[in-house]
């Protein structure tokens, strides 16, 4: 295919792909009675967005999501980096076994273990708590695995220099390895934040308390409550998608790198 033809096909397919999202954005700005008209709206209005922001606790839902997503991302990055460093660099009996055990958990996705995980969380008193939303979301082998592969490529000499300077293992990790792995940590930060902001199944399962609703659960609840008041439901989805888009725009390159490497490893 010639370049011009490929470009044309690319533009057209891309336009079709984003059309539903553009449609969503336009619809939110339409007056309620024109919502389903396939025509240029008679006027644009912010009424739908303002209603959702003032009459629905969407701010509360977003705050919950922000707290949980940031907490999970920060704690997960610290713990995964430590574990990955040990698995890549430190010699200790059972290291291979531990690594295999960790990697084998990659097979299991949340929907598969949802029911027993719920029973564990209930026994631990984690239901309807922030800890219950945060803790189970932290532990995922993917980040450990990716970081370990990265740490294997860091030259040993750098650490040995730190060793000669009298650094213990903790300082070697914190002052040598962590600064060197900033790019991949940034990639994973975008990935973890997005995954947790978009999380639905576990927050839905682990909480009944309306004050603990995360934003995706909030939208699904609105969808149930407001039934055919589509203008409000759509406005809520737009508001909820804004942080996602910001994170995506800021971290796009990092995110793309992380996804490409995850396919190659």
């Amino acid at each position, binding site marked *: *295919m010639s*370049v*011009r033809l*490929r470009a044309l096909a690319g*533009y057209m397919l*891309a336009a079709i*792909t*984003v059309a*539903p*999202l553009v449609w969503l954005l336009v*619809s939110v700005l339409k007056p309620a009675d024109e919502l*389903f008209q*396939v025509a240029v709206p008679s006027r644009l209005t912010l009424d739908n967005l303002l209603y959702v922001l003032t009459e629905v606790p969407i701010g509360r839902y977003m705050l919950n999501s922000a707290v949980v997503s940031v907490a999970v991302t920060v704690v997960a990055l610290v*713990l995964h980096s430590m*574990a990955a*460093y*040990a*698995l890549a660099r*430190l*010699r*200790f009996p059972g*290291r291979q076994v*531990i690594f295999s*055990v*960790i990697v084998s*958990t990659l097979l*299991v996705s949340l*929907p*598969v*273990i*949802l*029911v*027993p995980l719920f*029973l*564990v969380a*209930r026994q631990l008193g984690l239901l309807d708590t922030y800890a219950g939303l945060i803790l189970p979301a932290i*532990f995922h082998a993917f980040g*450990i695995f990716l970081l370990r592969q990265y740490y294997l490529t860091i030259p040993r000499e750098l650490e*040995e220099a730190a*060793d*000669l300077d009298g650094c213990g*293992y903790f300082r070697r990790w914190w002052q040598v390895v962590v600064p060197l792995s900033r790019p991949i940590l940034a990639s994973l930060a975008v990935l973890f934040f997005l995954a947790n902001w*978009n999380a*639905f*199944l576990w927050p*839905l*399962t682990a909480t009944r308390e309306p004050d603990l609703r995360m934003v*995706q659960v909030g*939208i*699904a609840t609105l*969808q149930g409550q407001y039934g055919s008041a*589509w203008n409000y*439901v759509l406005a809520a*989805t737009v508001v*909820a*998608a804004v942080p996602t888009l910001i994170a*995506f725009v800021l971290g796009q390159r990092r995110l793309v790198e992380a*996804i*490409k490497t995850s396919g*190659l490893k």
Partner: protein
Amino acid sequence: MPRCSDPLPACGARPAAPPVWTRRRREALAGYAFVAPDLIGLLIFVGLPMVLALGVSLFSVDGFGGYTFVGLDNFRQMAADAQLWQSVKVTLTYVVTFVPIGFVVSLGLALLVRDHFPGVGLVRTMFFLPHVISLVVVGVVWQFLLVDKQGAVPALLRPVGLGEVSFLGNPALALGSLVVISIWFLMGYQMLILLGGLKDIPKEYEEAARVDGATAWQRFRHVIWPLLRPTSFFVLVNSTVGAVTGLQAFDLVYVLTKGGPAGSTSTVVFYIYQQAFTFNNYGYAAALTTAVVAFLVVATGLMFGATKGGRFDVG
């Protein structure tokens, strides 16, 4: 800490080596300390649930956490559970349509945007955009677009006489809609991975084939495809596992159709969720979980064996 066991030249100059085992022990202790938080977390929140599923599947559990031992009753119940087999059928139909079609679409997009053309970066971003949005938002948006008679899709299809078709209300079309929406959501992600694989193929190989007079199809068939196999394998396994047990098989179904109409979109993971959290049958749900895990282990083993781990070193 001096370390004379190491071959570093600087170390040799150091005097007064302490016994080697101290250093080793220190390193091992540090190793365990570094791994412990993640390992314990994974054991509690992933390992324990897996083991527990097996244990709980032998009990009948009521909504208040009372356990009654019932032996293999939960597993016997499965055989006679028509709704379960319906959901197995739904899941299989979903997998055999979504996985291959999604793969072909993603690969097509990857090939289209592999080489530079003006605005190629923006085009790639636009393909990937649906994947950034949450599945809940995706579900809501498409439900809005597909609303019977009024939605944008029926409105656009009216000129060709399809405007009165009910996409989510008709059992035959609801699952098809789910497949299309899943592909729309996932294709940008798969495209990116395949793009990574394509970029790793040296241009010279294709150039050589071109010089030898190979057509575009021949270059794809005999140069690109064999070299792309490991990446393709990863994408296919990923999307199969995702289709059987992934979030899109739950989140999308939950928001879009709640499993209906007439159970036509009730996937296995959605059915397990309903058994546990709508009917409070935790024991039965745990038995279903055990069956799914067993199936996954066997299926992955088979796929791995059949494809030699996707490496295809031979041929």
